[in-house]
């Protein structure tokens, strides 16, 4: 019968020679191999002191951004909650009072905004869905906590502080911004930009 491939090998259980039966040469060669490993560079990373750099687009804990004058960008439209596959996001909205323009960018804002970090799967769909560039995932890790309640993060944790804003430079690279001009993500642009995209696509 003709063989289908030329890769088949005849397996023979051959008798061991006397030297092989002694096992000592094999033992010594094995010991030399382990001895070489003794001097190898160890790939261990000593974690708490030494942390591997995260990817710039790592999807970790969320941040609710403020705009240039420090007003909250979120307008409580609920698109992130709709987009969330894990249903981790809840919010209640409220109307901006006169004199609160420095606090909230739009007339409507999120009075409460909660993300359940135990439900969240860190897919980043909320970031994609947000029309106001308000919510982003960052390269920060969610802390280990003792109770389930503590994992429901409210605005006090999610909104960035005015004093030290969270940098998104690694995340919002020019390439990413360019990509967001794609018609599929056109809702992420401001109104007149959206029109431009629509015009160009027609």
């Amino acid at each position, binding site marked *: 019968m003709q063989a289908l491939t030329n890769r088949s090998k005849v397996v023979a259980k051959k008798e061991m020679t006397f030297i092989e039966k002694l096992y000592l040469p094999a*033992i010594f060669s094995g*010991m030399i191999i382990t*001895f070489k*490993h*003794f001097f*190898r560079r160890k790939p261990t990373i000593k974690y708490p002191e030494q942390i591997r750099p995260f990817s710039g687009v790592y999807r970790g804990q969320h941040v609710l951004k403020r705009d240039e004058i420090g007003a909250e960008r979120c307008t409580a439209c609920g698109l992130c909650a709709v987009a969330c596959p894990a249903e981790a996001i809840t919010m209640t909205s409220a109307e901006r009072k006169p004199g609160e323009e420095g606090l909230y960018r739009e007339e409507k804002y999120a009075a409460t905004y909660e993300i359940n970090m135990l439900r969240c799967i860190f897919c980043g769909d909320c970031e994609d869905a947000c029309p106001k560039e308000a919510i982003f995932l960052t390269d920060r890790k969610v802390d280990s906590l003792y109770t389930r309640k503590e994992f429901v993060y409210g605005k006090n944790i999610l909104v960035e502080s005015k004093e030290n804003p969270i940098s998104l430079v690694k995340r919002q690279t020019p390439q990413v911004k360019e990509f967001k001009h794609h018609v599929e993500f056109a809702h992420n642009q401001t109104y007149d930009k959206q029109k431009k995209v629509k015009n160009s696509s027609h």
Partner: protein
Amino acid sequence: MTLSFLIYKVILVLIIFAITLLVATYSTYAERKIAAFLQDRIGPDRAGPFGILQPLADAVKMFMKEEMIPSVSNRMLFIIGPGVCMLTACMTGVVIPWGPSMNIGGTEYPLQITDLNIGILYLFGVISLGVYGIMIGGWASNNKFSLLGAIRASSQMISYEVAMGLSIIALVMTTGTLSLGQIAADQPGAHWNVFIQPLGFLIFIICAFAETNRAPFDLPECETELVGGYHTEYSSMKLGFFLFAEYINMFISSAVISTFYFGGYNMPFIARFVHDPNWLAVLGFVFLFTKISFFIFVFMWVRWTLPRFRYDQLMNLGWKVLIPLSILNLVVTGGWMMRMEIYHFFIK
């Protein structure tokens, strides 16, 4: 037998005892480090610099753990078991010459607790008593895995003691003495017994691995087959005693191998540079410990290289390979020693 002599001996006993315990303690650390390095890991490095204080942390853990004595066990024997193990392990260091004699103010101070003229017999007697600790512990636990481990330990020890004894008889024939001090003194410079008895050395070191229950002969405590073997039911410091006794045995075995086959405290060319007997004694002690450290490393190196034997393979190796080989070694050694007589017998 003066008072000063007694005091000197007591001090020597205490020092040797302390060193034995210290070396055994740091053997646990060395074992973990060497295992890690042979497997491309770093090993314990949290307690102190490089994890140097890890044995202390382990000891604290062992003492703090809950003491468990199974209600179905034989309570007294259960407690005696690890004690016997530890006691016999510590007793073996008595006859080992830790260095040549010191000479202070005209009196000789030998660095050997006692130079018995039947040192080898004493050594073997105590080593074979060691199996009682394991046997009693395994039996008293009233647990089938413990008992299996204990039975394995005893049959393994008995099997390998035969080959070990026979390989030592050949050594005794060439050295002509049973005293360890004499054996060490008879190997000045590089006249080590390993060059006279290479096969005997090979058999002896294999049997030493088996006697100390170390891999590849760690069948009495193989966790993949017997949960934990003879110490399955033990916890806290009683478990610690069993594990500790193994490391003491390893240390003593390394000392015995160094003394029997590698010249003990002797080192080539040292007599040319150092003439003061006290310095020679100190240096001899250092040399002996270098050799011992090397053999402890070999013990660990082998453990982390070779897989465990199957039980029938173990028995095959012991009875069908090592014993015939050691008898052959005995016959060849005897023939070589009597070569002139044999020559004359056939010529005439």
